């Protein structure tokens, strides 16, 4: 597994393509792909939105992640870091933010590399630098 994180619009997807030799079509969009396709894809972007959709369906993101880990251990996950603001008053928004963090913690533990992208610059915060 690989994890690529950062703020919105930092060039995370581009970075993933460059570093892992992905084509555009290799990357599913977590915001509107079929959830079951994630278990066999090379990469998924907007992973934080995928978590949100799973929660909206009242399914457990932890169970989903366990399943993903087993079915698609080499998957490349691309997620926004969404935990850097004031905790929202609304329950679902608050839970989503927290859960996305927890699932990304699990993903970071599973990943060979965790790469943080800022203004298009990748910084390897876990694993050997691969560029």
């Amino acid at each position, binding site marked *: 597994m690989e994890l690529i994180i950062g703020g919105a619009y930092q060039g995370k997807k581009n970075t993933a393509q460059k570093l892992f030799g992905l084509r555009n079509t290799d990357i599913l969009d977590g915001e509107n792909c079929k959830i079951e396709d994630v278990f066999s894809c090379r990469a998924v972007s907007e992973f934080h939105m995928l978590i949100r959709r799973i929660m909206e369906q009242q399914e457990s993101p932890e169970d989903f992640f366990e399943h993903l880990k087993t079915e698609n251990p080499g998957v490349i996950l691309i997620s926004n870091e969404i935990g850097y603001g004031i905790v929202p008053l609304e329950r679902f928004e608050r839970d989503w933010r927290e859960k996305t963090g927890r699932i990304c*913690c699990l993903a970071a533990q599973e990943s060979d590399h965790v790469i943080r992208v800022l203004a298009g610059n990748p910084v390897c915060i876990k694993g050997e630098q691969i560029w």
Partner: protein
Amino acid sequence: MIVVTGGSGSGKSAYAEKQILQFGEMPRYYIATMENRDAESQKRVDRHRAMRADKKFVTVECPYDLQEIQLEKTGAVLLECMSNLVANELFVKDGMVHMEQTVEKIVQGIQRLKAQCRHLVVVTNEVFSDGLQYDEWTGEYIRCLGMVNQHLSELADQVVEVVYTIPVMQKG
């Protein structure tokens, strides 16, 4: 002194606790700043208590007035979380305390606490980057926590940002 910061759900509590354990056998204190108001915060308290079980922490509840704390023994102290302490100090029954006053009070509290222990680990929170416009009160709160964090960082030997369980050194 170590300051541990990070976003929500980043694993900063677990990291901070690990640091305390690495200091070895000595008295351990956990200073809890969250006021227990509802089922959700109870759940959070329970989760953190479970994480500390068997690690011989003495829990000291301290939602405000940090400067009043008097520890019996010299040891390792984990204070969690600055974001709650700032909110509790800033927002009182009749309104809002002056921000500068709150910053000063908290910084003095930390200095007093630091003088009483061998190791101090303070957990705080990154709440500064959602770019949203908030009401005046929340805006003051964000400013206040930002100021407190800057002071903490100055006092600390090490500042660590925990990013999804991975420590990223910001100072030291």
